[in-house]
């Protein structure tokens, strides 16, 4: 191994355990500097997690969040310089983090913060206009495939994490006191026109969009929605999703250029 590689191995280990690398000078003189580097690295990673999971931090407070983030750094580390990507495993980590046991909705809220980043940085694309389906004959409608917008992220949660997330996501002011119906919910997070927006979904709405995401035509998506909830008002759901900006225009959905 080259001397430079050996130094980098030793220094990278020292960043984790805090002891200066041996053989590069008087350890006592190196220690103060090692502390500076270590503090900067940990602060950089902690700041990245805070920036990427602002709703989690608001719900649990800065001190709790910092403790959870430090515990997370025992099991994960940034892999590249684009720190927006850091913390992909944080939602799953929170699901197994003993102090979060009573906060069953927290991993869901963390997943939604991730959805936000993914949506925020996804490719730009046009949106299916309201009324675009109005002129289509009903028999064609069922064969039509609606493709989700490239910024769309879809999830189903065993608790009202989507409602809790929507109410608490900064920069909106924290709500005073909220009554939340405790039930399973879905969420659609997307960036159809500039800003990231979110929709809380019931079982039928989620099943419909999930079928669209799988590439099923409208007929199949409608069946999926009605299987989830036989009482579902399908045309109301579809109109709401189109108004929200959930889909790509038909042109690109049908005549999508090859790779």
């Amino acid at each position, binding site marked *: 191994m*080259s*001397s*430079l*590689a050996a*130094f*980098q*191995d030793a*220094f*990278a280990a020292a*960043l984790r355990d805090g002891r*200066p690398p041996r053989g*590069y*000078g*008087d350890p006592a*003189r*190196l220690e*103060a*500097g*090692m502390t*500076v*580097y270590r503090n*900067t*690295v940990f602060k*950089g*990673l902690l700041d*990245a997690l805070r920036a990427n999971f602002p709703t989690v931090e608001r719900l649990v407070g800065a001190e709790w969040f910092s403790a959870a983030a430090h515990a997370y750094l025992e099991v994960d*580390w*940034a*892999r*590249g*310089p*684009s*720190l*927006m990507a850091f913390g992909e495993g944080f939602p799953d980590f929170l699901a197994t983090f003993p102090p979060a046991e009573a906060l069953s909705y927290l991993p869901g809220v963390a997943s939604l913060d991730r959805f936000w980043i993914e949506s*925020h*940085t*996804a*490719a*730009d*694309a046009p949106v299916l206009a309201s009324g675009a389906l109005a002129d289509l004959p009903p028999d064609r409608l069922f064969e039509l495939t609606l493709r989700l917008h*490239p*910024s769309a992220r879809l999830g189903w949660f065993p608790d009202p994490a989507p409602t809790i997330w929507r109410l608490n996501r900064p920069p909106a002011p924290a709500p005073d006191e909220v009554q939340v119906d405790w039930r399973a919910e879905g969420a659609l997070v997307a*960036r159809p026109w*500039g*800003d990231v927006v979110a929709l809380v979904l019931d079982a039928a709405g989620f099943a419909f969009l999930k079928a669209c995401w799988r590439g099923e035509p409208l007929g199949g998506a409608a069946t999926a929605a009605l299987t989830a909830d036989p009482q579902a008002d399908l045309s109301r759901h579809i109109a709401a999703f189109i108004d929200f900006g959930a889909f790509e225009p038909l042109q690109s959905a049908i005549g999508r250029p090859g790779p």
Partner: protein
Amino acid sequence: MRPTAGLGFKPEHFDEAMACQAVGLWFEVHPENYMVAGGPRLAMLEALRCDHELSLHGVGLSLAADADPDPAHLARLKALVDRFSPFVVSEHLAWSAWQGAYNPDLLPFPRTRAALDRIAANIDRTQAALGRAILVENPSLYMPLEGHDLDEVEFLLELVRRTGCGLLVDVNNVFVSACNLGFSPEAYLDAVPGSAIGEIHLAGHTPDGRLGERLLIDTHGAPVAEPVWRLYERLIARVGARPTLIERDEDIPSFGDLLSERDRAAEILAGGSLSADPDLAHV
């Protein structure tokens, strides 16, 4: 418009930055924050670029690691260079990525001849991938490592000679390193020929919480210190005007406060003879 003094771009200052008419004002960003598929970040930078020169100042290439630069990262950087036509692209004489882990800091190393060979090769690769020369910035140093074969200026000038890169001289980093390691910042700066300097950085530093003024930290969290301004004036008087950036990343003040620091640099530049060393064709 010839870029004079610039500011690190802060998205929270977008509206004021767009509206600002200061002559020669330019903006610098970390390209890593814009390596995304789409969305408002890129849209903001597009809008800003319409009326202002832009500099891409990388923090993630890890040129001083004993490893090739990540080709995927280079490709993303190249895409941004093609899209935004920055007037300067820069990186650091430091490492951050190692063995698949990224440490968000600019880390030191013993400046051996072997390290020089490796870093020169990494700069060559970077410049070949980007199709243009880059500037390399001197780091802030915090520990007296042993095992250097060359001092920092010798090392940097050797990189310039071998690769055709230029230097981004961070005057605050020189001041911070000089204080922490005990050398003369004037002697350091005097040893750098003006012909190698393509850009200058100015920033504020903070005394260490425990050791005070004996250990300065390059926090970018305070206004530029007076001794750093004096070093800057001395440097400009010697080498002439160079595009100069005010960096601020912590405790970010109002756009107006940053602009007045920037204006101070612009006044000093206007006093210096414009480009005493015009042979910066490679930059």
